[in-house]
């Protein structure tokens, strides 16, 4: 009797000990969120050539590429005018007059300004806006009824940062 008690006690102790000690340890699982990485403006130190600028502009505005022949021709046009800022402005306004520029409507822009501003920064400047930039643009567009997506796109295409990569 005494022996059986001892045996059962030992068995219980062993069972408890084994059940605790043999518990499978859960492996930690690490998961990475998908985050698109963009350079900040400070990383842009090289000036685009005239041909690079206009090729990227066309792609940004029309979501399609210029042909190599058109690229050569437009490069010569740019070279034939001294004020490069002026000729860039003229090229942008010609593109805007083409009718095929892919951009949201004014209503779509104003319905979701944060998304529009972020999309515009990533589309033209290949980076996210800072908080202050997003705030400035939000305030500027909200307080200015004449601002359209076209004017915003124009300003980005004309900016100095857009000339760099």
């Amino acid at each position: 009797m005494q022996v059986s008690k001892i045996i059962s006690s030992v068995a219980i102790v062993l069972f408890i000990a084994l059940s605790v000690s043999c518990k499978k340890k859960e492996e930690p699982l690490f998961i990475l969120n998908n985050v698109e990485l963009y350079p900040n403006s400070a990383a842009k130190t090289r000036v685009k050539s005239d041909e690079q600028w206009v090729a990227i502009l066309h792609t940004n505005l029309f979501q399609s590429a210029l042909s190599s022949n058109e690229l050569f021709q437009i490069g010569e046009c740019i070279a034939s005018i001294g004020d490069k800022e002026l000729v860039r402005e003229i090229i942008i306004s010609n593109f805007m007059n083409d009718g095929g520029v892919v951009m949201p409507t004014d209503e779509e822009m104003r319905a979701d300004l944060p998304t529009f501003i972020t999309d515009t920064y990533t589309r033209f400047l290949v980076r996210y806006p800072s908080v202050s930039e997003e705030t400035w643009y939000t305030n500027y567009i909200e307080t200015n009824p004449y601002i359209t997506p076209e004017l915003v796109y124009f300003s980005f295409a004309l900016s100095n940062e857009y000339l760099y990569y």
Partner: protein
Amino acid sequence: MKRREFIRKTGLTAGAALVAPYILPSGRLFAQTGSQIAPHVVMVMFAGGVRQQESVLQRYVEDSQNEPYPGNIMYNMLDGEAPTQKIVYGTGAGGINPIPQILNSSLQSQGTLFSEVTALSRGHYGGLNSLLQGSNAITQGLRQKPVNPTIFEFLRRHGGYSATDAWFIGNGINNSVPLLNYSIDPGYGASYGANFFAPNITFDGVCENFLGDARVYHPENELDPIYQMKYFLDNNFDNYASGLGNLGNTEDEKQQIKEFMTLMYDKTGNGTIAHPPISDSEDLRTVGYTCEVLKHFKPAMTVVNLDNVDACHSNFTEYTASLHRADHAVGHLWDYIQNEIPEMADNTIIIATPECGRNLEPNGILDANDWRSFDHSDENALRVFTMMAGPTIPQNLTIGGEGNPIGFTSDSMLTAAEILGVKNNVLNAGTLAPGTLSLFDRL
């Protein structure tokens, strides 16, 4: 130590007090230092390499081809009888019809001819630079902006001239021509540069496709916001945007240039550009557009580059035709200024100088007339001329001659600087080639 700091601060304050009143509304730091001789200068870079023998010396094919037919094929610029035989430089089949003279009296009789001037370079690019910089920087390579400040930059920085007061018109975009409107000198540079067109390209049908259908934006409701948003973006990026080469056209000036371009596309389409009576070459059409620039902007300083005579490397016949046309172009330019631009008539000085000459001896290339061709590499390629005419310029005066060279091609730049009131600034910069003088000092 405290006393020294006090003295330093006092000195800085006094200096600032002296300088501040001279920061003028035009943006220039100092007032114009010299008085103007005339309010407008038109400089013709009579370029491409003009052989002295066929120009000032009027030997036509006598000297070059050993055929006994001398004559003057530049009768708008020079006094002298035209050739009577072997005429190939005109219009029509074989070029047998000389282009009629435009000016009633030659520029030589209206002004002063420096008939034997020494070029600073035997090459085009060095030669063009000597006309614009007043020097031929030997460290300067092709496809590189001028090393020393150009006449445009001196005028804009020290004379307070606006961007649309300074124009450089090229007859193409080859041979670094589009780079010549400003230098890389850190004290000058793009913000003092000239506006530039290569109009045969800018206003042709191809560029019209890309530039001629610009959307017109409302100045206050649309353009202003565009610029405001751009300036906001630029302010967040200004660390890297210092070398972009903006010419400093004001927004009003940009608007004027856009209007001019629209006008040019219309006039080109209508065939109403102010071209010379004969306009069958790039040089002639370049001068036609130059007339339009002059009429529209009335610039203080206009430089136009011609260079079709460079055909002489392989085609002497075409060279004579181009030389004849370059003369026709200059005649038309002067005639147009006097008769079609009242604001510039009688108060414009024209200066014409080749950037270099051509060789005494021919190369081995014969053209369709079996005439020999000429490169530009020997001492004869340093022999050129300078012509100037306009108010205060002595009339019917010839200075120097064969065997008696007087002056350098770099003189033309300093002369333009003197006419427009910045001669001392150019002299003080110390960038001129040794021996350079204003042509007024050689009269």
